[in-house]
């Protein structure tokens, strides 16, 4: 509120060291957003055949870069920044040791730089390095070892970040033995719990199979196994992207609307449900995979459908909190209160539009989750249409809108231009409405995703909701608006950084209408939720993974390495390293035999 008292301190006044980490994380995030946006516009115009400035064979390097920079670097760097702010703010105490904090930030930045180099080297023919494996890196497509090694370092960085927050929480707990866990800290701890469970599988996949295979220590892997381990991680990671947005919707949006969060207990329930249900669902990405029994797919689907519950509850609570805010500002009537909201603030309008698109994304997600109707849209352009509404808007637009609110708190610098901000968030909404809608429609025509040239020589697509060409134009226009919107966001932020520091920007967060005292104690029992979550994961995954290994073996039924040109390179490498690694290889081979 503009009535903030002069003596009120901002986050950076109180915690200057932590604020520096938050700013560094956000800037890393936005640098990735810039790279992702550049590859995004190249890709949109290429796919729709508006402008093809690269050969189609390089399209997949662009696509890998867009995917990895957007959903790994942009989202996760923003998350670690936001969580550092939220935990420190809500516990009202500094982190235990800022050197550890900078260590994990350094590991994440180093890891992502290595992975980024391995991807971008794919553009340079003279460098014998590439990682054209897309964000999902399905074996037997193989990337340069640097790609996997970088991802590993990055993930280890996030693990240390989680440990940093847990240790700080435990220190707070010793000082406050009888207090409820503050809501934002509760959100940080539950989200990180989910992340540890989820990322363990991709770490196992990379360290046990993909990295040794890319280094030539093992000849082949089981593609279904590594794919299943990827999706063990690949679905909960979408909630890892989403939880920062949820945190902003629950704890910051009601404040901006002029009110307070409707219910603290239900917010806790929602985050607990995500801990429990976000992992035992990954097989819903594999409905069309051979080698996995129908029953396992059905269990995964049932869990997935119940995962709708926390998001449906969120829709209620967020709208109720905003309505409460509007009525506090004098709003009346059944819908009349909508006019009493701060629509001129980009942080408010951005988050509201993001929430609206998330609802649309939720509905297309229900189609994806339906085991049978999924056949119609699996791997068509419908799917990227869906996740550009969810991660591409619900998450990305909320992060941008949230930045307009939080940046002054962590820097004491007012936003350069709220008008540009407002224009930017609305432009994103319009661009995404055009692009995503047309992508969904093309998906229903059968247009595949992940392809440089979706027009084929042997057949034409059927025509409905407008033809293929017309929808291409909508995608190209939408993608261009999104690019412009991103540049406006980044430009506004750069100009903000040039602003002089001022005082009086503090905006404290109010307590909820129904507070933590209304929440049953059991909600704060993290050990219990971890136990149940692990049980559900074992129930959902132990049998499928055992069956996959039993069918194809730990290292797969007779599958090679692609691209083929890599094979001789690795043979040479393996020969050279044989004396050193021979013992290790023998050992691992015998272990494999035993396991088999």
């Amino acid at each position, binding site marked *: 509120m503009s009535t903030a008292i002069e003596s009120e301190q901002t986050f950076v006044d109180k915690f200057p060291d932590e604020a520096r980490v938050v700013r560094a994380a956000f800037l890393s995030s936005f640098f990735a957003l810039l790279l992702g946006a550049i590859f995004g516009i190249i890709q949109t115009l290429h796919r729709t055949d508006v402008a093809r400035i690269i050969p189609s064979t390089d399209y997949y390097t662009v696509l890998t870069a867009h995917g990895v920079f957007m959903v790994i670097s942009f989202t996760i760097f923003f998350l670690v920044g936001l969580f550092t702010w939220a935990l420190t703010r809500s516990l009202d105490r500094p982190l235990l040791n800022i050197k550890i904090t900078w260590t994990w930030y350094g590991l994440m930045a180093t890891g992502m730089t290595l992975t980024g180099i391995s991807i971008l080297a794919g553009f340079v023919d003279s460098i014998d390095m590439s990682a054209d494996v897309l964000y999902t890196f399905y074996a037997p497509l193989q990337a340069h070892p640097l790609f996997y090694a970088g991802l590993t370092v990055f993930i280890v960085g996030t693990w240390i970040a989680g440990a940093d927050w847990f240790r700080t929480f435990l220190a707070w707990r010793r000082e406050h033995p009888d207090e409820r866990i503050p809501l934002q800290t509760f959100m940080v701890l539950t989200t990180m719990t989910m992340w540890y469970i989820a990322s363990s599988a991709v770490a196992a996949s990379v360290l046990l199979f993909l990295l040794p295979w890319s280094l030539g220590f093992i000849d082949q892997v*089981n593609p279904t196994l590594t794919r299943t381990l990827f999706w063990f991680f690949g679905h909960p990671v979408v909630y890892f992207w989403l939880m920062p947005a949820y945190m902003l919707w629950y704890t910051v949006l009601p404040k901006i609307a002029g009110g307070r969060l409707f219910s603290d207990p239900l917010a806790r329930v929602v985050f607990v449900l995500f801990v429990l249900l976000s992992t035992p669902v990954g097989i819903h990405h594999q409905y069309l*995979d051979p080698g996995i029994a129908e029953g396992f797919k059905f269990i995964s689907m049932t869990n997935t459908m119940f995962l709708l519950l926390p998001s449906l509850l969120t829709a209620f609570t967020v709208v109720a909190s905003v309505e409460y805010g509007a009525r506090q500002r004098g709003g009346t009537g059944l819908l009349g209160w909508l006019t009493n909201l701060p629509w001129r603030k980009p942080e408010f309008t951005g988050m509201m539009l993001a929430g609206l698109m998330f609802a649309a994304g939720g509905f297309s997600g229900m189609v994806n989750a339906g085991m049978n109707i999924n056949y119609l849209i*699996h791997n068509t352009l419908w799917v990227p249409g869906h996740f550009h509404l969810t991660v591409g808007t619900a998450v990305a637009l909320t992060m941008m809108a949230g930045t307009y609110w939080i940046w002054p708190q962590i820097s004491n610098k007012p936003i350069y231009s709220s008008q540009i901000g407002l224009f930017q968030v609305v432009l994103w909404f319009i661009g995404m409405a055009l692009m995503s809608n047309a992508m969904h429609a093309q998906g229903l025509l059968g247009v*595949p995703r992940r392809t440089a040239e979706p027009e084929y020589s042997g*057949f034409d697509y059927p025509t409905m909701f407008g033809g293929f060409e017309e929808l291409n134009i909508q995608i190209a226009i939408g993608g261009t608006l999104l690019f412009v919107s991103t540049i406006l966001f980044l430009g506004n932020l750069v100009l903000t950084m040039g602003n002089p520091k001022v005082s009086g920007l503090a905006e404290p967060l109010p307590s909820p209408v129904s507070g933590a005292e209304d929440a049953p104690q059991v909600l704060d029992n993290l050990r219990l939720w971890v136990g149940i979550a692990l049980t559900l994961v074992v129930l959902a995954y132990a049998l499928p993974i055992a069956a996959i290994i039993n069918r194809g073996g730990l290292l797969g039924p007779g599958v090679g390495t692609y691209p083929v040109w890599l094979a001789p390179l690795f043979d040479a490498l393996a020969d050279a390293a044989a004396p050193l690694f021979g013992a290790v290889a023998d050992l691992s081979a015998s272990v494999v035999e035993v396991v088999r």
Partner: protein
Amino acid sequence: MHIHAYEKLWLALSIVLILALIGTVTYGAVGPGVAMVADSQSTVDAAALDEDERFSEPRVEQVGENEYEAYIVAYQFGFEPSPIVVPANSTVTLHVTSRDVIHGFEVVGTSANTMAVPGEVSEITVETEEPTEYGLVCNEYCGAGHHVMEGKINVVSQSEFESRGGDSE
């Protein structure tokens, strides 16, 4: 814990929606009999498909009255047989595998869609109707030439199918 009356109502409706979604899929499976790609087929050595009795010769063959089996291999960057010729008004069971990387197998404009995974065999059963031609695309990124990977499924009359010797190769 205090929960607002409207919130309870919303929660109840949400659970009804979730159960209805699960219910429709369950009905689809037991009623109209929508089968999933599953683990019904045994694994195969992707590096030695020419020694496998199912895939050594990609083909379409008759196994009963109006019943046919198709054995299809996806590879960088195409499908065998090419085109895949199947008879009209019949039941065709497609067996799809890959001899290199993971591919997709999507009959454009239909719900005949599956992954093609090296080492595994996807089985889907389709009903053909009148003679027509369908486009076939790989819908999973499979390498630098992914965008040229396409095929054809030609549904031809029973008599034309037989005059071709019953085999599409």
